[in-house]
C-alpha cells in the first residue's frame, strides 16, 4: 500500500465496485466513456415545459430486465432471481442503487457464505431519493386516493433504497443512511471507514443512492440560480463545464454507484483482490444553511483528511474535484486546493468527473470514488470536458478535453454540499 497507517488502526481497502450511470452500467463501459470524454447529459424526459431547466442525466427509461439479461454471466443466478423479485415493485432510485450494489458485491467476490453476513454493514449516502415517484403518487392521490401505489408507505421511504439492496445481498451488519446533500456519499465513505476501524464490521457496502429528480426540484434550483438553464438547453452535452469561463451552474444527473470497503485483514483472509485503499477521510461544517461555498471549511476538510491519512501534500498525485460547474463553487474549491497543497497543486492533475456524467447529487462521491480508483488502476486520467474558454482566475491543470497517462499513488476526492457540509476522502493505490 502506498501510505503508512497509524499503529493499531485497521487499514481499509476497496475490494469491489459497481456503477449505474448514463455513461455506463459496468466498470469497463464507464471507464471507456470517461476516457473518450463522452457526455452523459441530454434532454430530460417528461419535464413540464414551464420549468426553465430541462437538461440532465436521464435514466427514467432504465430497463432492469435488459440489464440483468445483458449482465448475464457476471451475476450468480440466485442473485439475479432475488433482484428480479425484489426490484419489480421498487421505485427507480432503489432499482438503480441496487444494480450498482449488486455490481460491487459481485466484483468483490462476495456471495453466500463468503463473509459472515452479520459482519457486513451497509451505509447509503443520500436522502430525498424519490421525488419523481412521490410526485406521481401525489398526482394520483388527487385523482383517487385508493389508487396510489399500494406499497407507497414502505417504498416511498429513503430507507427502502437501502433495505431492498440489503435484502437482495443479505447484508446483516450495521446499516443506515447518511445525509449531507451533495457530500452525502463522501461522508458515507467516512462513516464506513469509522465502522471498519472501530471493528463494528469486517466489510461495509457503501452505496451512493440515486436521486430521481423531478420538475419541482429542478425549478427550485433554477430559482436559486444553482443549475444550468440559460445557455445550453439546446446543447445539453456542453452544459456541464467546470472551471470554464462560460460555466453557469451544475447539471443534475440520475445515477448510482457502490463500493465494498473491507478491512485489509478480512480481504487478506479470504484472498480478495484489493483495488485501492481508503487512507483517510474528514468532514467539516461552515455552520451555514446556505448553498454558499466556504473556503475555510473546505480547507479544514481537505487538510484534516490528509492528516487522517498521514499523507503530506507533496505526496498527493491527483485531485478528483467536487467541481460542479457553478461560478462560485469551482473558484472556491480551486482556492482551497491551492491553500492545502501549496506548490503541489500546480504539479498535479485536477479533473471533474461531473463534466461528463453530470452531478449525481447525493450519489456523486461514490461515482467519483469509482472513477478515481479506475484511473489509479489503469494509470490514466480522464479529461474535464467542455474546456473552451479558460477562466483566467482558475489556473490549475484541469486535464482539458483529452485524457492522458498519469501514475497515481495517492488521490484526493472532494465533495461539498448545500448547508455548509464539506468532506474529503484520501485514496491510495493498491500495491
Amino acid at each position, binding site marked *: 500500500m502506498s501510505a503508512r497507517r497509524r499503529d493499531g488502526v485497521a487499514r481499509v481497502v476497496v475490494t469491489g465496485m459497481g456503477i449505474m450511470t448514463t455513461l455506463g452500467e459496468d466498470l469497463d463501459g464507464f471507464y471507456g466513456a470517461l476516457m473518450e470524454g463522452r457526455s452523459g447529459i441530454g434532454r430530460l424526459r417528461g419535464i413540464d415545459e414551464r420549468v426553465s431547466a430541462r437538461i440532465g442525466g436521464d435514466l427514467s427509461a432504465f430497463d432492469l430486465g435488459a440489464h440483468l439479461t445483458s449482465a448475464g454471466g457476471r451475476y450468480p443466478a440466485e442473485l439475479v432471481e432475488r433482484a428480479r*423479485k425484489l426490484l*419489480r415493485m421498487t421505485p427507480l432510485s432503489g432499482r438503480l442503487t441496487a444494480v450498482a450494489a449488486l455490481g460491487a458485491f459481485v466484483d468483490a467476490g462476495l456471495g453466500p457464505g463468503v463473509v459472515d453476513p452479520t459482519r457486513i454493514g451497509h451505509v447509503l449516502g443520500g436522502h430525498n431519493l424519490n421525488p419523481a415517484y412521490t410526485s406521481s403518487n401525489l398526482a394520483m392521490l388527487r385523482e383517487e386516493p*385508493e*389508487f396510489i401505489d*399500494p*406499497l407507497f408507505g*414502505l417504498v416511498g421511504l429513503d430507507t427502502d433504497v437501502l433495505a431492498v439492496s440489503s435484502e437482495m445481498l443479505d447484508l446483516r451488519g450495521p446499516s443506515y443512511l447518511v445525509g449531507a446533500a451533495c457530500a452525502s456519499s463522501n461522508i458515507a465513505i467516512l462513516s464506513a471507514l469509522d465502522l471498519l476501524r472501530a471493528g463494528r464490521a469486517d466489510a461495509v457496502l457503501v452505496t451512493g443512492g440515486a436521486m430521481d429528480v423531478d420538475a419541482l426540484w429542478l425549478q427550485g434550483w433554477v430559482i436559486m440560480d444553482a443549475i444550468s438553464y440559460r445557455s445550453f438547453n439546446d446543447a445539453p452535452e456542453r452544459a456541464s463545464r467546470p472551471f470554464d469561463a462560460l460555466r453557469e451552474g451544475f447539471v443534475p444527473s440520475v445515477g448510482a454507484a457502490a463500493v465494498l470497503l473491507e478491512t485489509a485483514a478480512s480481504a487478506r483472509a479470504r484472498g480478495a483482490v484489493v483495488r485501492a485503499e481508503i487512507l483517510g477521510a474528514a468532514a467539516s461544517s461552515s455552520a451555514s444553511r446556505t448553498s454558499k461555498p466556504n473556503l475555510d471549511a473546505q480547507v479544514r476538510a481537505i487538510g484534516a483528511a490528509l492528516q487522517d491519512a498521514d499523507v503530506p501534500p507533496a505526496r498527493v498525485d491527483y485531485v478528483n474535484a467536487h467541481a460542479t460547474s457553478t461560478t462560485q463553487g469551482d473558484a472556491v474549491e480551486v482556492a482551497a486546493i491551492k491553500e492545502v497543497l501549496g506548490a503541489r497543486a500546480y504539479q498535479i492533475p485536477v479533473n471533474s468527473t461531473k463534466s461528463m456524467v453530470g452531478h449525481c447529487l447525493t450519489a456523486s462521491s461514490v461515482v467519483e470514488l469509482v472513477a478515481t480508483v479506475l484511473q489509479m488502476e489503469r494509470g490514466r486520467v480522464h479529461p474535464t470536458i467542455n474546456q473552451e474558454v479558460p477562466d483566467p482566475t482558475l489556473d490549475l491543470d484541469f486535464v482539458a478535453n483529452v485524457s492522458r497517462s498519469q501514475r497515481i499513488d495517492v488521490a484526493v476526492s472532494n465533495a461539498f454540499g448545500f448547508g455548509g457540509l464539506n468532506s474529503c476522502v484520501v485514496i491510495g493505490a493498491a500495491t
Partner: protein
Amino acid sequence: MTRDEILGAIKTNMLEVIEGARGREIREEHSLVRDFGADSLEIVEVVSRTMKQLKLKVPRTQLSDAHSIGELCDLFLQAAVTAGR
C-alpha cells in the same frame, strides 16, 4: 360486470405479482397465501392493481375477511353492484 371479468383481472395480477402462481392452475377455492405462497405485500399489490384495473373500490376493512380467491371475487362483485355496474 361479470364474475368472470373480475376473476380474470385477479388472475392476471396474480401472475404479474406472485411468483408462486406462475404456470399453476388458479381456482376460486385457492388461497393466495396457502396455495401460492404470497406475502402480505404481494396480496396488497394484487388487490390494489385489480381495484385500479376495474375502477372499483373495495373497502380495505373487509379484505381480511377474504380467505380465498372466490371470496375476494365476492367482494369485488359486491363493489360493482354498489357502484351500479
